[in-house]
Every structure is written in structure tokens, then in C-alpha cells.
């Protein structure tokens, strides 16, 4: 064996590679994979933090849950919340990306400031929007009254028909910068020659947008929408800060329902059961995402 092949053997030694992932593997197995599987099995138990005895109850939790009319409310709320908080910031973020992509004086500064909304804690964002939507002195009521849209103050967070609108707007405000950042990246990847060629063929702005920009960005757009929807499906923080799922369950999404059932009613078994339903919903989106990743990155 000559010296070169010995070095090569050492280089290709995969054992060191395995050693390097051990810490990640350890935390991953103990804090994600094990708890995940464990939570699934908990859905078949009556584990409660209030009673010391736990036993397997089969599908009893699922039967009880499917007969619980609240479940359908939670699912409906989740769908409304996710649709609103994905589509609104996507559209606004896209337009904002186009505006800022002009590169006028101060546009870099505006991009930076916009991203601050995304980086600050949900606690601060929740507080801020509670104040803005406050029933007597909130800025939203002030503006709407000034514009003549409403005559009397609306207690946005206190009414079942308006609370969801308020939390969707707050969450959209937080998510807009995330869409903007990636869409600016996407806009810059659209080949300039294609735009020029379309112009020479007489395309106007709308046609350029539809046939060149949109079609070039299709991949990144679908990616962002899927990832955005998954993130919003998981979202808990702003909802909890602003409404705790109320008034009367009107903003209780599956995430809030799991939290309430587990840590206010202390019924972990039932919380896990709601969690399973929630995981199934997320999986629908995750499948698209994974197919995409497998196609793009690991060929």
C-alpha cells in the first residue's frame, strides 16, 4: 500500500462523519422524535396531570373528540386563520417587494426596517395590536370613525365576529417581511433578457408580470406558500397573547386547543388526540414540501 492510498482511505473514512452528527442526533432523538412518537401514543391514554392513574383507553379519546362539536369549530378557525395569515401577507409582501426592489434612495433602509417587524418577539407584537385594536382608545377605531366607516367604537377583541380579523391582521403584519425577503430574492433571479425580449414583443407591465416574472417565480412562490401555511398552522404565540383563543373559542385554533386542553384542563390524553388531528392537517402540506425538496435538492 503506497502512501497516497492510505491518505485516501483516511479521507473517505465515514466514521468521523458519523461522530460529528452524534450530538445533533442525540438532541434530535430525545427532544423531537421520541416526544413526537410518545405524544401520538398518549392519544390512546387518559393521562391527566390531575389524576395519578393512567391507562390505555384505545380509541375512546378519538370517539369522544369526533362527537365534540367544538372540534369542528377549531378546525374551521384553523383554516380561516391559516388562509388569512398566508394569503394576505403574501400578496402585500409581494407588492412591497416589487416597490422596494426599485432601489430608490432609502429602499435598503426600508427593507431593514420592515424585517424588524418579523424579528421582534410575538409578545411585543401581540401587545401592540391589542392596543391598536383596543375598544375605546385604539387607533383602528379612531381612524375608522374619522373616515366615517363606523359610528360607534368596536370592541374588536371582545366580539366573536371581529376577534379573528384582528389576530389575522396582527399575524399578517408579522409574516409580511418574511415573504418580502424571499420574494425580493426571487425577483432578482428573474432573467433580465427574458423581460427585455417580452418588451420587444410588445408586452405591457401586466403581461410581463404574468408571463415572465410569475412564471419564473412559480417554484419559489409555491414553496413560500407551503412553508408559510405550515408555519401558520403551527402558530400559537400571537393568538395566545391577544385573545387566549377567546372570546368563546372564536380564535381557538388547533394549537390553542391543544394548549388549553393540556395546560388548563390538564387533560394530556385528549390534548394529544387533538394534536394527532392537527399533525394530519400539517402532513397534507408537508407532503408537497417534501416532494419538492426531494426533486430539487437530493437528486
Amino acid at each position, binding site marked *: 500500500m503506497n502512501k497516497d492510498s492510505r491518505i485516501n482511505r*483516511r479521507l*473517505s473514512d*465515514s466514521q468521523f*462523519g*458519523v461522530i*460529528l*452528527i452524534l*450530538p*445533533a442526533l442525540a*438532541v*434530535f432523538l*430525545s427532544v423531537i422524535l421520541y*416526544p*413526537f412518537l*410518545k*405524544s401520538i401514543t*398518549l392519544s390512546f391514554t387518559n*393521562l391527566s396531570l390531575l389524576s395519578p392513574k393512567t391507562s390505555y383507553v384505545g380509541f375512546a379519546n378519538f370517539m369522544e373528540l369526533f362527537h365534540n362539536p367544538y372540534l369542528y369549530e377549531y378546525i374551521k378557525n384553523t383554516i380561516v386563520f391559516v388562509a388569512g395569515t398566508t394569503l394576505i401577507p403574501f400578496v*402585500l409582501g409581494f407588492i*412591497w417587494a*416589487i*416597490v422596494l*426592489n*426599485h432601489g430608490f434612495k432609502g429602499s435598503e433602509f*426600508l427593507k431593514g426596517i420592515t*424585517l*424588524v417587524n418579523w424579528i*421582534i*418577539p*410575538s*409578545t*411585543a407584537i401581540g*401587545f*401592540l395590536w391589542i*392596543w391598536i385594536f383596543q375598544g375605546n*382608545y385604539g*387607533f383602528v377605531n379612531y381612524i375608522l370613525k374619522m373616515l366615517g366607516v363606523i359610528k360607534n367604537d368596536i370592541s374588536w377583541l371582545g366580539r366573536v365576529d371581529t376577534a379573528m380579523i384582528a389576530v389575522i391582521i396582527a399575524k399578517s*403584519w408579522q409574516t409580511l417581511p418574511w415573504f418580502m425577503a*424571499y420574494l425580493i430574492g426571487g*425577483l432578482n433571479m428573474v432573467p433580465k433578457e427574458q*423581460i427585455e425580449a417580452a*418588451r420587444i414583443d410588445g408586452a405591457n*407591465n401586466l403581461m410581463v408580470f404574468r408571463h415572465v416574472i410569475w412564471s419564473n417565480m412559480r417554484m419559489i412562490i409555491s*414553496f413560500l406558500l407551503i412553508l408559510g401555511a405550515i408555519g401558520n*398552522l403551527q402558530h*400559537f*404565540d400571537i393568538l*395566545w*397573547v391577544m385573545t387566549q383563543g377567546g372570546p368563546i373559542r372564536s380564535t381557538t385554533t*388547533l394549537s390553542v386547543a*391543544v*394548549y388549553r386542553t*393540556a395546560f388548563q384542563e390538564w387533560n*394530556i390524553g385528549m390534548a394529544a388526540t387533538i*394534536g394527532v388531528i392537527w*399533525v394530519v392537517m400539517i402532513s397534507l402540506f*408537508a407532503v408537497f414540501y*417534501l416532494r419538492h*425538496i426531494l426533486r430539487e435538492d*437530493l437528486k
Partner: protein
Amino acid sequence: MFEKSKSYRIFFWISFILIGLFVLFPLYWMINTALKPITEVLTPDIWPKHPTLVNFMEVFQNKEILLYFKNSFIVSIVTSILSTFVAAYAAYSFSKYRYKGRISFMLLILVSKMFPYAVLLLSIYVMMQTLGMQDSYAALVVSYITFALPVAVWTLKTYFDEIPDALVEAAKIDGASNFGIIHKIIFPLAIPGLISTAIYSFVWSWNDILYSLTLITSAEKRTLASGLIMTYIGEGNDNWAGMMAASVVVSIPVAIIFIAVQRFFVQGLTAGAVKG
């Protein structure tokens, strides 16, 4: 990109003003309210007539809030350092080594980002209780490292992928040890990636509410983001200026870090592309 026709100009200015107001005004309103004295808080004045720092003083004189602040710093810094190392080793391994199970583990890490955190929390809560780790910094740090891992690993991997294998091989021929190569050659070349990973983990732990709300049971260990909820959300709270001052205070550390290293962060984000 677009022709500056008349209709385009109208679209541009309307969007600029309306979305601009939506994006920028709320944060301004937070600061504006925080600077108002008690007599002006309930007015819709766009500018405080007698700006004051008294609301901030009150936040900083609150002993509990100061304690939360300290806890948040400890937990976030420890998480940030540990998770950057854990993720960097794993990402380097994924990038430069080939072994059985590599792709499966990479995918598993990716998928794990989609497991709902509240569902994991059910078992983690029971687990921490059994291990007697409830109400400890460690419980939070371990959880945050794991949750920061997927994005961190995938971001760093794209950085390491760009470092040519020849560089690693040359170092090996010169007799550098495996760890020597990582610490002296690879990490310095991937500094922007490491910084953005560290920030990401820091921000994650700083901003978390759910885990801090449940795994921590005593006020002495509570972090700022969840602690403020205990302080300000409750029956009959109408200290709006105090609430806004506290919101500014909890936002400042992440905002400052972000602005200071925005270049790295955005670079890191886009390098990780839309994988995270």
C-alpha cells in the same frame, strides 16, 4: 423590470403609501405611546406633546422584569452557542462525508420542523417532570437547540458545500487532524453562516413563549417574552404606555443584533434558500 407608465406610477404610489403605512406605522405607534406621559396616552396624538422616559423607567425599576431579562439573556446566549456548534458539526458531516443513513437523517431533521411544537410539548413536559428538570434553564436550552437545529443545519450545509473538497484534502496531506481542519479551516471560512445561525438560535430562544410558559413554573426562572404576559395581561390592565414601553424593551436586544449583522443574516437566509 416594469415600464414607468402612468398606471404603473399610480400603482406604485398607492402601494408605497398604503403598505408602507401598514408596515411602518404600528411600530411607530408602539414607540410613540411608550413616550407619552399618562395624561396623553389615551389621545390619538401622532406625536407626544411632552415626551417622557418615565414609562421606561418604570419597566426598568420592576425587579421581576429585570430578573426575566437576565434569564432570557442566559438562556438565549447558551442556546445560541451550543446550537451553533451542534449544527455546525452535523452540517459539516452532511456536507463532506458519505455514510449510510445520511440522507434519511437529513430528511428527518427537515421534517421535524413541521412537527407541531405544542404536540411535542405534551411529552416533553411529562419527560421533564419525570427527570426533575422542570423549571430549569436546561429544559429550555435543550428544547431550543433542537428547534433551531433544522434551519441551522441546512443553512450551514450550503456554506460548507461551497468550500472545495480539495482544500480539506490538502490540509489532510499536510497532517492536520480532523478536528483541526474543522476548527482552523472550515469554521473561519463559514463565519457569515455561523453568525446567522447563532443569531437565529438567539432570536428563537429570546422570542419563545410556549415552552417558557409551561416548562418554567417559578417567576425566578421565567424568560422575558413569557414573563411580560404574566405582568401585563390580566384583569383590568390599562397601563398601555407601560405595556408599549415593555414591548420596546423586549424588542430592543433582537432588533439591535439584527440591524448590526443584517448583512450576514439576510445572506445566510438566502443561502439556506427556502429550505428552512
